[in-house]
């Protein structure tokens, strides 16, 4: 029973409240009934799980850590645990939920007008509408301050021009939070699907996050009413605040992918016989398992530690960087090491680790690359910025 043995070693449940465990177990139950059996096919065929949105909404998963407007209002730790279960199935699914809740809904919840909140949040929470978040551009990734998308006043309207790249849910979204440069600095706008001049095209031939839609958005003289502007968002700090939210979920999520890789591989190594014995019995294999388990326990404890700080309202962005840097880096190492134990069998979609590893390539890069998070930590320690 590798699963039970691993859970007993990690033994993290004792640090969780009944409510946190109940939420986590509900997510795990739902996913194992409705998603896990299909995920390898979805990945292979590049199917993004948008049809699941109403089901996820019914559970309360979408924008779960936000208050009011149909959102469940759970703790940050509960949100993290849900991300962990989602990403244990696939990072694409977790990305969908992160973007919906922490980027799209959070940006409206935090920076939107009362009318914008009333209009969008209940349908986004229910999964009846899908949201996206457009900050990155083809020429401006790690340094979004240089963005070239612009919005200019025309009477009381705004006219938006430019393009965004690598936008999760972009072509399936009913509303996109778009960040553009204006005379007053970086400003956020809600752009509904179908607005004239707004088009989306999916990024083809992806080798990672295949069960998630990634799109390029183009804005060609897109006319928006004054009411489309997010009134409380001022400057680049606004989108960066949203990213910090989504990143927090990744700290937990990455450990879900790691745990699932480890479990799949423990199972395999138990039954795979070479040289007349299960490969789980070889010392080299056991060393890999021991090292990976250590990193999973450490990563989960770090995630929970940061979650408790967030629930106390005191989590700093550089602490989020610490968690994202460590947990994604370790998770991708674990997924790759698991693949080695699976041997040739590990290169197919019959086993999850290589799918997780491929997904984690994106996770390593989006929401701030590992290099950028390293520099954030460096700056927090030394007071010196090494960016430019």
């Amino acid at each position, binding site marked *: 029973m590798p699963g039970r043995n691993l859970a007993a070693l990690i033994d993290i449940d004792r640090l969780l409240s009944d409510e946190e465990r109940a939420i986590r177990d509900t997510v795990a139950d739902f996913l194992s009934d409705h998603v896990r059996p299909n995920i390898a096919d979805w990945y292979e065929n590049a199917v993004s799980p948008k049809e699941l949105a109403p089901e996820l909404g019914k559970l309360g998963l979408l924008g779960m850590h936000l208050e009011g407007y149909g959102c469940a209002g*759970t703790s940050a730790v509960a949100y993290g645990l849900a991300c962990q279960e989602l990403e244990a199935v696939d990072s694409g699914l977790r990305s969908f939920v992160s973007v919906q809740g922490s980027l799209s809904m959070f940006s409206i919840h935090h920076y939107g007008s009362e009318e914008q909140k009333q209009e969008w949040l209940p349908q986004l929470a229910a999964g009846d509408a899908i949201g996206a978040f457009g900050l990155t551009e083809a020429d401006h990734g790690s340094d979004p301050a240089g963005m070239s998308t612009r919005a200019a006043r025309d009477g009381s309207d705004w006219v938006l021009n430019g393009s965004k790249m690598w936008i999760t849910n972009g072509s399936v979204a009913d509303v996109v939070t778009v960040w553009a440069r204006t005379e007053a600095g970086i400003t956020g706008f809600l752009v509904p699907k179908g607005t004239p001049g707004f088009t989306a095209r999916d990024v083809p031939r992806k080798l990672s996050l295949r069960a998630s839609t990634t799109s390029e958005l183009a804005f060609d003289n897109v006319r928006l009413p004054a009411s489309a502007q997010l009134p409380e968002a001022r400057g680049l700090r606004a989108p960066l605040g949203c990213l910090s939210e989504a990143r927090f979920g990744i700290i937990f999520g990455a450990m879900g992918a790691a745990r699932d890789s480890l479990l799949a591989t423990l199972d395999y190594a138990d039954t795979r016989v070479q040289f007349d014995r299960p490969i789980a019995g070889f010392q080299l294999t056991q060393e890999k398992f021991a090292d990976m388990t250590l990193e999973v326990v450490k990563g989960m404890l770090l995630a929970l530690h940061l979650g408790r700080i967030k629930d106390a309202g005191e989590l700093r962005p550089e602490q989020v960087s610490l968690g994202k840097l460590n947990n994604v880096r370790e998770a991708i190492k674990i997924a790759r090491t698991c693949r080695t134990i699976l041997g040739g069998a590990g290169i197919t979609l019959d086993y999850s680790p290589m799918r997780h590893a491929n997904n984690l390539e994106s996770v390593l890069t989006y929401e701030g690359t590992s290099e950028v998070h390293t520099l954030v930590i460096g700056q927090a320690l030394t007071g010196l910025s090494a960016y430019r």
Partner: protein
Amino acid sequence: MRLGMNIVVLVKQVPDTWAERSLKSSDNTLDRESVDAVINEVDEQAIEAGLRLIEAHGGEVTVLSMGPDRASESIRKALSMGATKGFLISDAALHGACVMQTATVIAKALSTMEWDIVLTGGESTDARLAVLPALLAEATGAAQLTQARKVTVEGSTVSVERVNEAGYSVIQASTPAIISVLEGTNEARYPSFKGIMAAKKKPLQTVNLGDLGIAADEVGLAHATTAVTSFENRPPRQAGAAVKDEGDGGVKIADYLASRKLL
């Protein structure tokens, strides 16, 4: 007249059906420690049936369980699905209780409540006796509607589709009634996060044998009407025989099945 219905759903906490289950060698009773505990699967469908009835007709669903203190987890789950309140009968003296004792204790608990319908799952995955609903009907004098796959209520008349070899028959009774439902009656809902958070604040009453006026020395393993005299663990799985298909795979499989008297 009272508005809506009072429904009691009986829920049993059992060891996870998918796990390696065992008995304890000390007294041949269920080993609850080494396995995760879950709600007996078909009981979730009884909860669902109860919730749908009150959604249609108004009223309350009380979840009743007899079991160790830990069974409160199963009650909480039912509350998070939407049940109104919980009732746990927990007493160390009930360890090893047989089904006859269980029926007596639950009937006693029911006599302290106002109820129109008791819903239960058809059987539990650990004991698999499937007689508790009938025993309860006998003990309470309520109508007995077992093996139901569909439950409808009109006024004080309850109708169920009772599954039989030929298909099903429709049985009606007036409340109060004891109804047991089968696997596949309806898909049980997942608790919502709001439901989980609200469940914490819902009332859960815990009683012991004294509270129910039952003498502790009349129940438990020593007075059980049935006893497990011995048990053996399942033999370890034998290595399977691999059949190599050299164009005659079908014949080889047929021969194998015939040799095991399966054909």
